[in-house]
């Protein structure tokens, strides 16, 4: 297993779920309760120093029990390494701890995840929709069950029974 992943597993044995390395990318999945602690550890540990947040993303796996996946991609400027930190949440309780106090840039990126996927972030300072209108109530567009061709309101239009001649 990758050295970084081993380090996380040793430090957080109860929270570690799995690690994968593919095409040179290291991805570590942790339990959501420990996400904040792991992130803080990644940033503050003198041998790691992941001080740069690259991006936050989310993936929807509708058939899985833990449906949503939150993905943080972070980078260490000093050691020039990358790591992908992931956690899974079920649909019934899709909320994770916000990492805005660890990396400030998480603010906008988490808002986007909330807006597009509907995953909420605990302790986020300003959790509002960011790309969709504030009053948008149609759901979360990047979920797999979001309709692709509108909500079908065109079908409710009244059409003339007979063409006007």
């Amino acid at each position, binding site marked *: 297993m990758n050295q970084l992943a081993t380090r996380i597993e040793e430090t957080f044995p109860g929270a570690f779920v799995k690690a994968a390395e593919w095409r040179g990318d290291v991805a570590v999945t942790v339990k959501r309760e420990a996400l904040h602690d792991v992130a803080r550890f990644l940033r503050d540990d003198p041998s790691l120093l992941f001080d740069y947040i690259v991006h936050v993303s989310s993936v929807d796996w509708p058939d899985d029990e833990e449906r949503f996946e939150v993905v943080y991609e972070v980078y260490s400027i000093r050691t020039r390494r990358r790591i992908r930190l992931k956690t899974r949440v079920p649909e019934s309780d899709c909320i994770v701890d916000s990492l805005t106090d660890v990396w400030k840039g998480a603010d906008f990126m988490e808002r*986007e995840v909330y807006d597009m996927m509907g995953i909420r972030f605990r302790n986020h300072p300003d959790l509002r929709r960011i790309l969709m209108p504030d009053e948008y109530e149609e759901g979360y567009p990047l979920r797999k069950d979001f309709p692709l061709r509108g909500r079908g309101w065109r079908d409710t239009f009244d059409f003339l029974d007979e063409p006007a001649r």
Partner: protein
Amino acid sequence: MAQFEDQRTTVYKVDPEHPESESLPTLRTEELLLNMGPQHPSTHGVLKVILELEGERLVKSTPVMGFLHRGVEKLAEEGTYHQFIPHTDRLDYVCAMYNNFAYCRAVEKLMNITVPERAEYLRTIVAEIQRIIGHQFWLGTQALDIGAMTVFFYCFRDREILLDWFDELCGARLTTSWYRIGGVERDFTPSLFAKLKQFLDYFPPKIDEYVIFLEKNRIWLARTKGVAVISAEDALSFGLSGPTLRGSGVDYDLRKYEPYSAYPKCEFSVPVGKNGDTYDRYWIRVQELYESVKIIRQCLEQIQDGPIMADVPSVTLPPKERVFTNLESMIQQFKLFSQGFNAPPGEIYCGTEAHKGELGFYIVSTGGGKPYRLKIRAPSFIHMGAFDHMSKGYMIADAVTIFGTYDIVMGECDR
């Protein structure tokens, strides 16, 4: 300013021994809320910022985005990998080539494809031309926003030459779609090589001109030096990238530290700022213009003959001339576009150093011809996250400069 503050404190305080002072005319000190944009010219018609003001000072700025949101990521998930290339053009429509490049690199990483050397050189040359175009566009419009009109005309005059060059290369000036997964769409003609060499001799003295115009301009210096300062630590924490990050003194350039394409074979330096202000970010972009010329020159010297597309028929498109003359090639192209190729299950992130910053693509594949999830790491969007932090305490007029300093394009920001 000092006089104004003194006046305000003396008038605002009520002396308890002289209650009649309460009736003196007082200055209004409550905060004022101002909506800037989306109709403001500097906000491109698609960005609103709610500014909380105290006098003319910015107390809090809240960007309101989404006016241009087109659901590009959802579109990507509904089309094949090849079909998405033209969509990437529409992200940052000013610098389409870079988006094509970043996307193709990500898919190549997913498919584990090695691009032929000649194609890598061609890609690097075009990417650097695009960087020059991007920086010229930025410099021109930023100078215009601040009021220096001549630089705008000069930058756009020189940008035209390169846009015409793009036109000759791929038939389009803006939405280019020239990069392909595994290579490039077509090779340079001898005329393109000749024109490019001519441009490389023509351009550096023109950069000197832009610099002279601005460095001698006291207004430009006053409006950029010491404005929107961000420390290196904060810049990293906010995830800033490109010149916006390097302006704060962080030496981070993917072309250098995670080298790709033909960059490892070229010698160039990464300009880094000291003060983290708008001026430093301007200075870095200007220096990058010189560096881009250097890179293109080296590529032109080193480029050798060879194929321009990787030989992976199950993934890469056949050459256009064969598509029009050979039935099998036509079927192959049709199948690759309509059904896609079979990607292995897995997930990758691939960042590319675009002129704005790190443009990254995160792709999750579950196999099949379409990406299961595609997330774009758009530098413009992430830079907007630092807007409030960087604008606090500056004057309302500086808000325009601060948008400008990120080089935002809302198509990329909203996606």
